[in-house]
């Protein structure tokens, strides 16, 4: 560990609260643990510069709003349009990298359940350590701004499902690792895949390779951008 990294860790650790993560001394010292499976990589790697507070994009000037006549209660049709336009505006303001095109029904970039996705998220904007979860998309729940997706993968033998809110600012990147069509057959979910994992055309074990390949591609891209 270089002096600079140690300095960063030290100053960070005295600033932050109880979650100080020292190197696990027990795992370093005990003989029996050395032969075991690899420990999780050092969590205190460089998390990157803290991001500022989140601001959604500025409100678009005009949308298809329907303002009900002032003295009447809007009937249900007008209410639906009003809510739809509010949700639409919220989605436009929170969509920074055009990810709504992935989940909008009828879009050319639409992603079907069964595809393999990679989700990068951060837990905190002051210490934006990127956490990656990749897996098979098994459900898309379209609920306007609260649209969420369920992604399933096997981690060390145990099945794990994670649900992500697509428009959350904490979800920094959604990448399609492999587009697979035909499993969902027009539906929005393939929950049955939990009971029949072999039915997916892509074996779950291949997902780790794809994540590694994506990480290498990202490193190369970052190196290219830094040198350019």
């Amino acid at each position, binding site marked *: 560990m270089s002096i600079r990294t140690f300095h960063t860790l030290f100053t960070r650790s005295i600033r932050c609260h109880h979650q100080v993560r020292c190197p696990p001394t027990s795992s370093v010292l005990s003989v029996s643990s050395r032969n075991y499976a690899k420990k*999780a990589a050092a969590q205190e790697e460089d998390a990157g510069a803290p991001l500022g507070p989140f601001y959604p994009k500025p409100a678009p000037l005009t949308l298809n709003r329907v303002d009900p006549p002032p003295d009447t209660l809007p009937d249900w049709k007008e209410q639906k349009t009003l809510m739809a336009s509010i949700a639409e505006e919220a989605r436009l303001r929170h969509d920074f990298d055009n990810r709504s095109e992935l989940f909008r029904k009828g879009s050319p970039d639409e992603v079907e359940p069964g595809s393999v996705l990679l989700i990068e998220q951060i837990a905190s904007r002051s210490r934006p350590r990127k956490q990656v979860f990749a897996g098979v998309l098994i459900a898309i729940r379209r609920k306007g701004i609260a649209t969420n997706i369920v992604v399933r993968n096997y981690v*060390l033998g*145990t099945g794990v499902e994670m649900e992500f809110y697509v428009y959350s600012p904490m979800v920094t990147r959604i990448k399609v690792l492999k587009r697979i069509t035909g499993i969902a057959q027009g539906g929005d979910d393939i929950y049955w895949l939990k009971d029949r994992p072999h039915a997916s055309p892509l074996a779950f074990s291949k997902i780790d390779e794809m994540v590694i390949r994506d990480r290498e591609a990202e490193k190369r891209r970052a190196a290219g951008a830094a040198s350019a």
Partner: protein
Amino acid sequence: MLQLKSLAKVTAPTQSSHLFALTTDDPFPNQVIDNSGALVVECINVLSGARFAHLGDEIVCVVKRARPVPTATSGPKGTQAAPKVKKGEVHRALIVRTRKENRRLDGTFVRFDDNAVVMLNKQGQPLGNRVMGVIAAECRQKRWAKIVSMAPKVV
């Protein structure tokens, strides 16, 4: 040579999708994922006093199935650590995986395929010295740093 096969996790045979968190009224077997010697435990008390135990909660449990204690003549000497718990003993444990989804503060949910625990002693120290399998990150937030540091993967 470590006999990794004997330390492998036993898959839960039950078919019922017990979605709700662990409770005392409806005992349900939970996997043990450390090398303390227990294999399957059942929750008998939730230490926080809540009705259900959630991810990262400490529970009192009874060992339903444990690794057999090796006799003097079986196996090459000095390879298997003597299991520290036996069937029928009452110990504490920390819940590290649940089938019931757990909401995080940023709105994400995480859900595992089984309920799993790590055995603890009365002082809150882990009984085993190794954890096999993935652990939820809630354990780190609830200050079980020692167990999180033993885990090969935290989700």
